């Protein structure tokens, strides 16, 4: 899962959002790192809808224009959780297990080849 996709799904955790709200929320959640362009957002939404991770939940007319809100589906939520667990595990290798890793390397170096 690529970073923008991850943040798009994460932005929907608190409930359905419309296009521009997703752009704003992903920006906030990523500390300004993920700045989605409109075209990129809808490409991602098309793909996530096709995969069944996201669904259309509401359609309103705002200023005479269609505004659709998208929500996370149960498969989308579990895919997001799986990705978060995978990244947390990967991060733990460095943060928690850093000492063990270093110890392991020096132990290997010390042992005769």
């Amino acid at each position, binding site marked *: 899962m690529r970073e923008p996709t991850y943040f798009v799904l994460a932005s929907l955790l608190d409930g359905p959002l419309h296009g*521009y709200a997703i752009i704003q929320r992903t920006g906030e959640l990523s500390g300004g790192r993920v700045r989605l*362009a409109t*075209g990129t957002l*809808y490409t991602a*939404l098309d*793909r996530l809808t096709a995969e069944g991770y996201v669904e259309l939940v509401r359609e309103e*007319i705002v200023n005479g*224009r*269609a505004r*659709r809100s998208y929500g996370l589906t149960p498969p989308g939520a579990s895919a997001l959780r799986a990705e978060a667990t995978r990244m947390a595990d990967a991060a733990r290798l460095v943060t928690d297990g850093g000492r063990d890793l270093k110890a392991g390397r020096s132990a290997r170096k010390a042992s005769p080849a």
Partner: protein
Amino acid sequence: MSPLERRCHWLLHAYPAWYRRNRADEMLGTLLEASPPGSRWPSFRDVRALVIGGLRVRGWVWWLSILWVVLGAAITGYTFFVTTKPFTNADFWIPLWNTEPKVVSIAAYLSVAASVLLTIPVLVAGFVRLRVSEPRGWLRAAAWAGAWVAGLALMRQAGIWSEYPATRCGNAMGCIVPQDSGPAIVSWGELAICAAWLALGAVMTQILAGPAHGWDAPDTSSRPSRKASL
């Protein structure tokens, strides 16, 4: 309609018509909300994302077909351009194609190679993409075949017309004898063929104008939705 709105609306034509019908309105709203207040032009990032997104929705068969057509137009346009120049003894093999700058003539040769190589794979990919089994699929497939026959005829005609200066050298392969040179003879026919290539591109875009296989994502209208007016 503000200038920004008009430009964004125009920009959304990067997407095919069937996609715009469902999405353009919503995307336009998001584009306008995401643009800084008072801006008259969409940002470079937005333009780039929309063009890439549009190409993605149109699919690689459309992309390669248009590349084929554009190469055909570029080759004939270039042939027309070189016939407006005086004829020199450097012009042999494909007559007149050794004009300066060298980079352009090398690009022209590569374009010829690429357009010939693209012909069969893209023709076949188009048939796969048009799904003959569907209702009206046969009609679209027939139109597709017709478009390619027209393209091949244009290729052949351009080949015949671009050879004509060679006849002045009395040598079918072009001017190998160095003393041959002469004034330009403009080949207006090549310009007509160039225009025909561009028209063919428009026809091909029309034939491919339906959604590609597996596209159901933007079809949000069929889903249950709660409409509310604000």
